[in-house]
């Protein structure tokens, strides 16, 4: 079947990607091929290099070594076309919050080369689906965390991208919205979109990812589907696998210490 063939298409390819800030090495050689339609759960402890990888892929960080190919083309400062096919939800909700949702979203749409009217309509509809039609004309600065996150999510999808980078996209969303969003991701992936999902919430990663990549100290420490990881590590949940691979087994002890200090008063 043709569909299976297109799913073999490599959307993103990292070869021996290294990056350091001064003397601190953040990435120590990442090798990774991502195929179309995959949902990659990109996990790792704080400071493992997750956000750095995503920033390099988006051209926000330079000065790396190794090769980075997106949609089969090496990225560079001059080649910016590929960004038109990428959607991005940053970890820190960076947006021009003095603008209204309408102003911000149409602006982003236009940056992607979309028409104002079309973007406006689309943004309004999407806001409506998230239950925010009332807030469409209000300034983002007055939004709650969850509302901002929804605006960010919408802004990353307006231009119908083929590749999505989501850095902790669920922060601040309520349980119902989380459920909706998870279904949206599954649906998008089945339509052939590739999703790069970075998060600390293991339960969600475990459920939605078709492939999990665990980054530890700038290297890929584990790579495979959840079932594969489970077989290899003989642990029940992704959280436990995560703890095992990153060599963390003191949670109980630390918790006890913490509480005992709390109770001292």
């Amino acid at each position, binding site marked *: 079947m043709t569909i299976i063939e297109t799913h073999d298409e490599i959307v993103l390819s990292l070869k021996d990607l290294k990056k350091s800030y001064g003397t601190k090495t953040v990435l120590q050689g990442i090798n990774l091929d991502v195929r179309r339609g995959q949902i990659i759960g990109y996990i790792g402890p704080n400071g493992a290099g997750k956000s750095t990888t995503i920033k390099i892929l988006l051209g926000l960080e330079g000065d790396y070594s190794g090769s980075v190919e997106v949609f089969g083309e090496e990225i560079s400062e001059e080649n*910016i076309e590929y*960004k*038109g096919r990428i959607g991005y939800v940053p970890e820190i909700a960076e947006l021009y919050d003095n603008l209204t949702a309408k102003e911000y979203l149409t602006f982003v749409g236009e940056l992607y080369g979309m028409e104002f009217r079309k973007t406006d309509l689309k943004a309004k509809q999407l806001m409506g689906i998230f239950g925010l039609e009332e807030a469409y004309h209000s300034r983002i600065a007055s939004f709650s965390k969850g509302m901002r996150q929804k605006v960010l999510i919408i802004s990353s999808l307006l231009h119908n991208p083929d590749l999505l980078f989501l850095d902790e996209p669920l922060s601040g969303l309520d349980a119902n919205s989380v459920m909706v969003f998870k279904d949206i991701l599954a649906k998008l992936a089945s339509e052939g979109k590739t999703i790069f999902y970075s998060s600390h919430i293991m339960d969600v990663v475990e459920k939605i990812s078709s492939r999990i990549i665990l980054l530890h100290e700038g290297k890929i420490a584990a790579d495979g589907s959840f079932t594969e990881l489970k077989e290899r590590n003989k642990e029940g949940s992704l959280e436990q696998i995560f703890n095992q691979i990153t060599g963390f087994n003191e949670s109980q002890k630390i918790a006890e210490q913490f509480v005992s200090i709390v109770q001292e008063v």
Partner: protein
Amino acid sequence: MKDFRSLKVIDLFRGLFERAGVEYPIMRRIVEVKLTMDGRRTPTIFNQQGRKKEKPEENGFMKSLMMYVILSVMLVPIVLFEGNLLFQMSLFFGIVMFIVMTSMISDFSNVLLDVKDKGILLTKPVGKKTISAAKMVHISIYLFFLTAAVALVPIGAGTVRHGLLFLLLSLLCLILMDLFIVVLTAMIYYVILRFFDGEKLKDVINYVQIVLSIMIVAGYQVLVRAFSFTAMEISYQAEWWQFLLPPFWFAAPFQLLMGGEKNVYLLAFTALAVIIPLVSIFIYIRVTPAFERNLQKLNSTGGESRRKERIWKQWMAGAICRSKEERFFFRFADQMMRNEREFRLKVYPSLGMAIIFPFVFMLNDIQINSYAHLITTKWYLSIYTAGMMIPNAVAMLRYSGKYKGAWIYQTAPVKSLAPLYSAALKVFIVNLFLPVYLVLSIIFLIMFGIKIFPDLVAAFVASVLFTAICSNFLKGRLPFSESFADANASGGVKMIAAFLLIAVFIGIHYAVTFVPFGVLLYFLVLLGVTAFAWRYAFRTIWDAH
């Protein structure tokens, strides 16, 4: 989003931009968004309840321009005066540069140092050229309005007086001056960014901003002194150090082409006026990539920077704070004020002014009489003018860059928040006002002799009283609880009120110096009144919550 007229003007140059490889519609859109944001203020979420919701679109910047237009009327006589054009125009350019540059540093640093842009714009398929062009256009529009506001009236008057050549030269020189200012500002930031990083860097920028705004004031004094007022006609002697003062460069062409004077200095100055801005633009373009890279340092958090608990501060807290609450609020306010850059940026320059003010007034007297005469007079009372900074600084206490953290006051189980006010004001006096006052006192003691010591002490108590009075500006607002974006840039009315009050203090003090033991009596009365006022304020103004 409304249609910006300034953008329609930019539209005329569309072809030029496109030839340079800029995607014009996108650039236009970015600038439009930036202008929209400039015109708005962040609504303060914390205080949103009980206030009017979205205020009608009002542009704070455009309002502040009106202030500049009014101020610029002051410049008209300088331009109209019959005399040496070099003198007049260097004075004119000196003042214009001062206003434009301080405004640039205090209000526009965030454009030059924007890191948010990168995350939002660079992740989209937008070329770097387009983004840089947008930034350039944004700054140009801002500078255009600012310069126009300051220069329009005097240049208009000058044109009527001196003719079209004057207009032409002025426009040219103002453009060159603006270029110079932008590059100079950016270069200063660049140099700092090269050598420092992260938090340290922001601190350094902060201090440079502060020092620079003070230096420009001082520089302006030098400029005035470059000529002696008594012989205004042609007493100007060209000297090498004038090469260091850019206003002279921009003034030189006027004297050269219109004043009918030709000499090597004037030619050299004129050459500098043209060459330096152009060369600096070239250098700026060359270093921009490195600059942008270094900008990222703004995001990185530096290593650990531990501040030592200062023993004298602890002792001070114990000595001047009565309750336990007040003591820990004192410590809290102390840390907030020392660490918060935005606060420092808004308040420290006025501290610098406070140091300069008393001398500015005295200079006039030296000008007329002599230094020897000055120190026999009662000009030391000008130390009161250091208090000019108090109203604005106190009003600033309610702002914080991290104002959202103010929920802590409400959730914490403290009975009354009045100690917070008194502690914040005490910290203000100890940390900010006292050092300035001490420096001034030492200089004054050296100048006027030890006999003025009681006067200085009395004046200090008066300043404390003045602070308590000014705390009215804080009424109903918690310290550190509002966004700086809501701060009114113009403190015009406050300044005038402060000036009047200070004048009253000086008047009384001047009067009591004629009475035997008058100063001592004055001091004792002040002490009583201050103690009463402080307690009264504690109960009425601060305890309103």
